[in-house]
């Protein structure tokens, strides 16, 4: 049984393990073709969010702001919002504009849906879909903001389908552009039609080309979004997603599109579940190439298990990601000693309990936590491996515990968008990285340690 805890200090969050809702929502829109985001609030929100997404992906991030000043705060920000939308349309002419709110806009009670409708700006800017997504920064973390935006986008385009199609929707979270390219490869091997939403494979990892255009290519297209309600099924990597936020569930309840909720396809079991779902939906065999990849992963797992058993890991990040990474660790004998998220989530504890009850592991599960708590427990529990985003670097530096990076943001290493974590191939690369980190750490000192333990004493 896992022990569930919250952070050490009740009123003070020390070194946050979460961001705010508009961040998640902005990331969601990055995967929609020819879209831009306008954040209704103080311009600092756009600036901070741009800065953090840019350092992770090393790509231009174009997010506008309604630049609310004191006047707008006192008299209402409708004029700023409308002018902002018109300027974005005039200067950048995107096809889709996602409008997000902020702590400021929500505290002064701005109803963006109402403003957009009543001001007539939506009809004035013909050809541009304006999608309002209320994302009060204080309401929840970026994890929730992401799903809130996904659901709003899906709902914006979904119509009662005239005919059902034979494609599946794959709704994703926490994936890198390289992961999404791998996802496409896997789906192509099955020879099925699909809509991946959101698709950041090109938008946030754009190839260099001569003749720069401010519009990035790629992303889930409007027509793909429109046909989501006609799909044969939805696979959603939303094992931890609160039911009310799940776009897959919305499609199921409203348009009878069956929902297959899966954990992220990280690890052998995680990937198996995903492939089984496709196989079941289409009544198709698992492609030979994928079977071979599974065999190779298994072969490698057998080779490295003796090294992995020394791992005592701290796994932190978004609920979905840490659930999948915990499973990868468990499969390979790496003990998840601390599993932590800054998000307040109940499904995580419940689901992990089920998984863990089959093993001897009793990890400490931290939800709604901060890095100060993670650090304390990481030391107390004598852990030797951190798995998560760059924010663990302070623990790494202070406590000399190696850090294997996954998640968002990764800004102290380069190449976050090229990392592959999913499928048998990606999982194996990631596993090797973990194993090699443990080996390196061990080799730094093991001769001395051994000598002291067995000879000197």
């Amino acid at each position, binding site marked *: 049984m896992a022990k569930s805890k919250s952070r050490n200090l009740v*009123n003070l*969050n020390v*070194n946050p393990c979460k961001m705010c809702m508009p961040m998640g929502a902005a990331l969601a829109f990055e995967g929609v073709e020819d879209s831009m985001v306008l954040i209704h609030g103080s311009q600092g929100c756009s*600036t901070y969010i741009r800065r953090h997404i840019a350092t992770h992906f090393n790509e231009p*991030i174009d997010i506008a702001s309604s630049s609310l000043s004191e006047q707008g705060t006192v008299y209402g920000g409708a004029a700023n919002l409308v002018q902002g939308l018109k300027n974005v349309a005039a*200067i*950048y002419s995107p096809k889709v504009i996602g409008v997000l709110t902020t702590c400021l806009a929500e505290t002064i009670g701005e109803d963006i849906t109402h403003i957009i409708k009543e001001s007539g700006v939506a009809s004035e800017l013909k050809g541009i879909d304006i999608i309002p997504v209320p994302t009060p920064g204080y309401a929840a973390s970026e994890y929730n903001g992401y799903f809130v935006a996904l659901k709003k986008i899906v709902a914006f385009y979904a119509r009662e389908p005239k005919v059902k199609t034979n494609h599946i929707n794959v709704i994703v979270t926490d994936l890198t552009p390289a992961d999404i390219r791998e996802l496409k490869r896997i789906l192509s091997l099955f020879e099925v039609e699909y809509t991946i939403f959101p698709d950041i494979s090109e938008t946030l990892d754009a190839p260099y080309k001569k003749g720069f255009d*401010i519009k990035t290519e790629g992303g889930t297209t409007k027509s793909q979004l429109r046909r989501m309600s006609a799909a044969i099924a939805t696979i959603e990597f939303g094992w931890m997603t609160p039911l009310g936020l799940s776009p897959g569930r919305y499609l199921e309840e409203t348009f009878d599109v069956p929902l297959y909720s899966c954990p992220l396809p990280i690890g052998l079991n995680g990937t198996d579940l995903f492939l089984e779902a496709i196989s079941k939906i289409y009544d198709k065999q698992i492609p030979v190439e994928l079977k071979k990849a599974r065999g190779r992963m298994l072969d490698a797992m057998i080779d490295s298990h003796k090294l992995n058993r020394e791992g005592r890991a701290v796994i932190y990040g978004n609920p979905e990601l840490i659930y999948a990474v915990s499973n990868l660790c468990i499969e390979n004998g790496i003990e998840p000693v601390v599993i932590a998220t800054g998000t307040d989530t109940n499904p995580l504890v419940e689901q992990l309990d089920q998984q863990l009850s089959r093993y001897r592991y009793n990890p400490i599960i931290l939800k709604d936590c901060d890095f100060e708590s993670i650090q304390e427990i990481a030391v107390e529990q004598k852990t030797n491996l951190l798995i998560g985003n760059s924010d663990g670097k302070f623990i790494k530096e202070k406590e000399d515990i190696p850090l294997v990076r996954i998640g968002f943001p990764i800004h102290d290493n380069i190449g976050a968008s090229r990392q592959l974590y999913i499928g048998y191939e990606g999982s194996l690369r990631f596993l090797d990285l973990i194993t090699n980190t443990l080996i390196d750490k061990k080799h730094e000192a093991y001769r001395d340690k051994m000598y002291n333990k067995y000879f000197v004493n």
Partner: protein
Amino acid sequence: MPQNINKAVEKVLDAYPAKVMKNRKSHMVIRETEKIQEIDANTRTIPGIITNRGCAYAGCKGVVIGPIIDMVHIVHGPIGCAYYTWGTRRNKGKTREGGQNFLEYSFCTDLGESDIVFGGEKKLIKAIDEAVALFHPKAISISATCPVGLIGDDIHQVAKQATKEYGIPVLSFSCEGYKGVSQSAGHHIANNKLMSEVIGKNEAYEAKAYSINMLGEYNIGGDEWEISRVMNKIGYHVITSMTGNSVYDEIAAAHKADLNIVQCHRSINYIAEMIEKKYGLPWIKVNFIGIASMSKSLRDMAKYFGDEELINRTEQVIAEEIAEIEEDITHYKKMCEGKTAMLFVGGSRAHHYQGLLKELGMETILAGYQFGHRDDYEGRDVIPNIKLDADSRNIEEIKVEKDQDNYQLRISEEKYKQLQEEIPLGNYKGMISEMGDGTVVIDDLNHFETEQFVKALKPDMFGSGIKDKYMVQKMGVYSKQIHSYDYAGPYAGFRGAVNFARDIAAGMNTSAWKYIISPWKKEPIITGKMGVDQVC
């Protein structure tokens, strides 16, 4: 070139809706050196334009207060703003002996929905209690984010109470993000409080001879350390910098110095003025970026003190330092010579870096500030003519008076006047006056304009920040972060100049630029015959 620039400016303005066009036009100047030219600055950002500006909170907590290393800086508000300012400006700080260092921390009251509805004051009070119990800091700051003022939390009252209860200074800053028009408002809010509640409070401090304060230096990438190294070598004693690598007690002793040197004019010039008024301590504008600027600033300082030995020592150190770097600079200059740059940074650096680039043989063809005011562009003479708009008027102005106990005229009025002729004593001439004919000055350059001007002017280097960096590089132009230095530095001072030269020489000449056009798009490059001459 000027014709080209005229066209580029016209093209940008033509693309705007009429109202936007009128506004943006007043923020652009094509330099004509025989004219006195005006520029609009520090005005409201146009909504939707994709500005690179930040907010008042960023200027207050992120820039000015955050770098003070032995204070616990509590962000009062929801989590995002605390997360986004966690260690992001790369201000370095060395822990003083027996002191504390919280630079790697981020503290937040993490307000949730119910706090927004019912108020967050109680949570703040408890958070301070927890911070004191766990970290025992020397002092605490509270920075307000957007919702705090709106929900009626009285952070100043909480701070007052906490100061009483715990016996440590607790400073509160009403730096809600929507205040002012950019981070500049936040600098002002932060510095006002340092002026009214911190500076002058350390009575016990015993200042040594040639004591100075380094104002508007934030120790990004270790700049302050490199400058201080040279200062120490000459014989100066830096009491405090404001606020890079600073600690509370040292800032509190700032009034004991003999001279304030101002690096970033924008963020702190009014404090320099207030310190002068209150304590009789004059300031000079310095620029530590580039060899000539650094040398000149050191000479100006020596001239202010007027001590023969100090003047000689200054010359000796300058000569030593230049000898040490000369060879490297010559080497990198060969790689930079003849290239052009565009600079869009802050409220000072777009000016400061022009000299260093010139020394490397490069011309700055466009420069602009993100949050500068007219005096940063046009010089301090323009200050009486600046019309305050509603946003600036809402930022509290504090008034200082002569401190009867601590006021001490450092130099006579006569000497002051005489020195003003020779050195920038209490004066700054701004960026524009140093820019040549046909160069462009643009205030609050936005995303669209960046794209257009980079395409039109084709610079070899674009010096700016992370938000525009990748767009510029996608256009085939090397982009150097002049805010965070791309995790490098120091760039200030003599040794810093070499670091900068090395980094930009590498950046502009990286082989990758040569591969942009793939070989199959050019003439065939392999001309060997198939099947024969297979050696190796």
